[in-house]
């Protein structure tokens, strides 16, 4: 089923093929950083591929931009900001921790907390056998009357 998401890119791809040997930086430390950054950035025209894996031309351009910035001495953060400034937050595979994305990031922890409260309540409730129901007001009255009679 995954093919569906990859076909488009491969169609555009032609003969280009992920990271090419001529792109690789000679400094292994810088190259490792470039690879790590590339894995976090989305190929803007692909369906769900990062620029490191993508065959599209724009992905190659972005890989080269990332490496250029790294060689120029940017920090990882600056490189990412540089790309985001030009292509928008759409290229970020890890959405920013921002107010707009609060629901996304907090969904897991909040649901866990909610679920914990509910299930602990449920379990504790189960731990005590159900008590017989208290008498209703009318029943109380009748009981009182019966007792009075005696």
């Amino acid at each position, binding site marked *: *089923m995954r093919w569906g998401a990859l076909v488009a890119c491969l169609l555009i791809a032609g003969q280009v093929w992920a990271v090419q040997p001529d792109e690789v930086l000679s400094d292994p430390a810088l190259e490792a950083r470039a690879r790590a950054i590339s894995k976090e950035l989305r190929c803007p025209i692909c369906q769900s591929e990062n620029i490191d894996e993508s065959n599209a031309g724009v992905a190659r351009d972005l890989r080269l931009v990332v490496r250029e910035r790294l060689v120029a001495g940017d920090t990882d953060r600056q490189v990412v900001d540089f790309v985001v400034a030009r292509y928008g937050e759409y290229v970020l595979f890890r959405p920013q921790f921002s107010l707009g994305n609060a629901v996304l990031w907090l969904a897991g922890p909040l649901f866990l907390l909610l*679920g914990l409260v509910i299930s602990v309540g449920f379990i504790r409730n189960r731990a005590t056998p159900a008590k017989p129901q208290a008498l209703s007001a009318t029943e109380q009255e009748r009981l009182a009357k019966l007792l009075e009679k005696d």
Partner: protein
Amino acid sequence: MIAELGHFALILAFVVAIIQMVVPMWGAHRGWANWMQIASPAASVQFALTAFSFGALMWAFIVSDFSVQLVVANSHSAKPMLYKVTGTWGNHEGSMLLWVLILTLFGAMVAWWGSDLPQGLKARVLSVQSAIAVAFFAFLLFTSNPFVRLEFPPIDGRDLNPLLQDPGLAFHPPFLYLGYVGLSMAFSFAVAALIEGKVDAAWARWVRPWTLAAWMFLTIGIAMGSWWAYYELGWGGWWFWDPVENASFMPWLVAAALLHSAIVVEKRDTLKTWTIFLAILAFSFSLIGTFIVRSGVITSVHAFANDPTRGVFILVILGIAIGGALTLFAARAHVLKSDAVFSVVSRESGLVMNNLLLVVATLVVFFGTLWPLFAELLTGRKVSVGPPFFDLAFTPFMVALAAILPLFSILPWKRAQLGRAMRPLWGALALSVASGALVWSLQTGGRMLAPIGTVLAVWIVLGALADLGHRVKFGKAGLAENLRRAGNLPRADWGKLVAHSGMGVLIFAIAAITAWEREDLRVMTSGDSFEMGGYEIRMEGVEMARGPNYQAERGTFSLLKDGQVISVVYPEKRFYPVQQFPTTEAAIDRSITRDLYVTLGDQQEDGGWAVRTYVKPYANWLWIGSIIMSLGGVLSLTDRRYRLGAPQRKLPDAVPAE
């Protein structure tokens, strides 16, 4: 002619489905036995008609009938026969027909094997199952008719996407659909139970095997897809958190939760409402998955808006099924109250925690998958959610699940003591921590991923073994007694041990391959060689090759260890001229501890070839772990209580002595 007959059979099946939806339900409501009895034969007829229709479509593919539009768009006369057959479901219309075929198959199986189900429940289950079928028959007939003819048939077809011409992917959809659609059984049983107002052990005993089977098929289907991606896409990725993958992963997670909670209903007669809710949820995620895949809404909101017919249709089905079931749930769930008592420390509580973690993890995947859609609809922002998010937000739940698994699965029902339960597990815990420490020292620091993964994996596998040892009184009684006890253990318990161990193996594989994978990229010419991970990789040459419907550049590489050739591999770059489509065929030398993975890239200007090589440690354990998990499911399915069917008061047959 045959295509028309297939179309006609599909329409007939639609009509039968409508009858099967209405008549038995009304009969069950009024208590009319003869109305209820229509359900079983109708289910068989419905299945037979759909099977005929599917067969007709497959025939059109086999004989390359290019007057059928679908065949033209997805087949070619030169395509190997296997892919002509599997091409039947390698497209939207055909795969939806397969979906409905499996749906009617499950209905028919209830009709065939459900003779000991209470009459009313059986009628209602088949009616609900048929209601789902009605929706999808309508979807097929009105928006996705596979039998459309062309007025002017072309000489040849446009061929199937070459990526799909692969055995791993050819059989991936049928397994996935058996899983997706298998969950419809749990859904139908849940809705029928809500209408009846009764959930008991017999109900759970019916629902659990269906859920278990669906979960097993999903496991195999997902593993196949992952295996295919691993060798076909050329960089050895095996999981991408792609929306389409998530679409199958969400039902898998919920099904895992459901098959655990159904145990509690069956054995302890509690968690009924929750289990009903999970059964509805599981199939809802199947439908959501179908919607995600079939509407194209995730890949592009605009593609969806341009041709919304199919998407809107599924969305309506989704709304009616989920909305209707949940409304019914809200109205009727209160009648299912049970008052079985269990203490805070008990297996019941453990399974509640299992369910909590699995369901919240599912919700994380759900929000992550649909967030780009929500964000764009709500604020107009275009955002992406990819692997870095899921790795961060999803993994903690699985770590927590793995950490509590061995202890909570050894706890006795009803009332337990932590200290007593831990007694057989201390050894497993100590060994797992020790092996984690060993891994940590061997890799000299680095990421904590591999050590933590190792601790969890060893903890789960040894925990399962310790559980087994405890059950058979290993070390406390003689070997004969051990064996006798092992022989008496129910198959379901063996299933549990095996499935949990499979999860342990899978966790180790994921941690190992993620933490220790190594990659090399270079330009090579014939005769070049280099060292990697203790192996020498030597390029012998590249030559042109020709397949039935493609051309290829085929490289020859020798893999050497200590100067000895251990393997020769042939990675290919293929080109399929009909579709103008290139594919990469990686060459993989597989072994139990590592895969050597070689792919051939483009020829460079200087005449050399780009060559990418990976050492992927324990890659095979990913599939082995998945297979072990499924085997656990199979073992559990063969448990005596399912072979005997639902419990019933029945006098032993008097057999005359001979």
